[in-house]
């Protein structure tokens, strides 16, 4: 050997680990102090106790009919029909948005992955460009995208769908790319070695290993899209959020709980569906 072997650098020594943990705790405490947090504020006082009591009491008796009929228009649908329609529209927005986001995520996730560029030229520059673009898309939250679209083109279903699809597409692309590159490169290298084309090396050597994780994550993001779609109702879209806000402002807490339970049931159904599909992937 030409030069003396250098000392291997030590892994994190126990004392160093303690310092890091201590530092992290200090950062947390500093942030609390900077915010002027007073945990006592979490406890309701004065009239708040009664409001909180009413609100949580309503949880065990969600509404099945309208709570107050004074200002109801004559042609208002039955309450449960209204809940069902709100839920249906929430789901529709979510499906439309996640479909677009999946296309964005698949195309840019593949382009951002290292494995796709194995055996090709020009990968580094394109990957960097795609990763930056995806970071831009997801650094803006869907509610802020919704605000931007609202200001630019007004209240249209297309705007709501894009507001969810853009940041979700950015997140899906980033995570898909990571999942593709986490899979073992051994099979891909073998296919490259036996003369397969770069696209086939990727399609058959890389993609199959990541597919189960990709599907599970896509399902999880679909669930998130349902929640985002519900919240977009706060801007006036006819999803659950709109009616939750209206019922809340009218102090119809039992109606609020009915909408929340409807959302919960939808999420649980999606969960059951996704776990069934995941089982099929594993078998």
């Amino acid at each position, binding site marked *: 050997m030409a030069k003396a072997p250098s000392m291997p650098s030590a892994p994190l020594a126990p004392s160093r680990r303690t310092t890091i943990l201590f530092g992290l705790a200090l950062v947390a405490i500093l942030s609390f102090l900077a915010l002027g947090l007073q945990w006592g504020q979490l406890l309701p006082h004065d009239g708040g106790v009664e409001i909180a009591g009413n609100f949580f009491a309503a949880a065990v008796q969600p509404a099945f009919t309208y709570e107050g009929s004074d200002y109801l228009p004559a042609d208002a649908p039955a309450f449960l029909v209204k809940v069902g329609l709100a839920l249906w529209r929430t789901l529709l927005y979510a499906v439309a948005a996640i479909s677009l986001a999946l296309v964005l995520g698949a195309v840019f996730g593949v382009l951002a992955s290292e494995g796709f560029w194995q055996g090709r030229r020009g990968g580094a520059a394109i990957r960097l460009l795609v990763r930056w673009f995806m970071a831009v898309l997801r650094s803006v939250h869907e509610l802020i995208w919704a605000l931007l679209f609202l200001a630019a083109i007004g209240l249209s279903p297309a705007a709501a769908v894009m507001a969810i699809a853009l940041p979700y597409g950015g997140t899906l692309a980033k995570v898909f790319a990571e999942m593709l590159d986490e899979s073992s490169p051994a*099979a891909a290298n073998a296919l490259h070695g036996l003369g397969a084309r770069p696209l086939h090396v990727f399609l058959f050597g890389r993609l199959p290993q990541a597919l189960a994780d990709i599907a599970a994550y896509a399902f999880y993001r679909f669930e998130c899209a349902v929640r985002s779609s519900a919240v977009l109702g706060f801007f006036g879209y006819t999803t659950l959020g709109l009616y939750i806000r209206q019922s809340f402002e009218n102090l119809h807490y039992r109606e609020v709980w009915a909408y929340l339970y409807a959302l919960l049931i939808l999420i649980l159904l999606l969960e059951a569906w996704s776990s069934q599909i995941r089982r099929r992937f594993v078998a």
Partner: protein
Amino acid sequence: MSSSPAFELAGVQVHLGGRPVLDSLDLRFAAGDMVALIGPSGAGKTTLLRVLNGVIAPSRGHLKMFGQDPAELSEARRRQLRADVGFVHQDHSLVPNLRVLQNVVAGGLGHRGFWSSLRLMIRPARAELLRAHQLLERVGIGDRLYHRTDSLSGGQQQRVALARALFQSPQALLADEPVSAVDPARARDMIALLTTLAKEEGWTLVASLHDVALAREFFPRLVALREGKVAFDGPPQDLTESAADAIYRLDG
């Protein structure tokens, strides 16, 4: 087949990460040669096999695969050269969550057109299916055609890798420690199978083996590497015990 040797190395040097791994190798493997690569770990056996496969280009010197220097060819032509070389990897290098069938027919990816390759992997024709099954029968695991690959034992996966190489129908087969993961009895069976197939198919076979006794028993030619250089090249009877010891000796 042409009379040019399967592989020819002239002054081949390989540096990986700034470190010399192979040093001025001059080697010739004639068509149909059966060669065992021996030598201590880190001597450069795997790197040499990857050079022969055409996936690592020599830093210096020249390699000829079937009479052609891949460095002088287009990537498309290099790909065709690689398609003529099968490789059985130490870790099998199969796609774990595909069926055995798909891993076997993947051997055909190098020889086919773009669409034909897609169809082969997604919807193999009946003839291709039958061939895959027949090849699996030949390596002794015909009943595993539709099993998920990662449900097979290590030894069985090694046989799937061999069936993939058979489906590829290459001119040469390289094997990197093909029996490092199985017990001695199975190791012997595997080497016997490998050398029998090589004879039947007319392959040039180059296999790295850590078991010198197996290498002596099954291969008419041994090439020993030590620190990236050829330490021995000849028939097993010429390799004396003391010479073999010197190859594996630990230096102070």
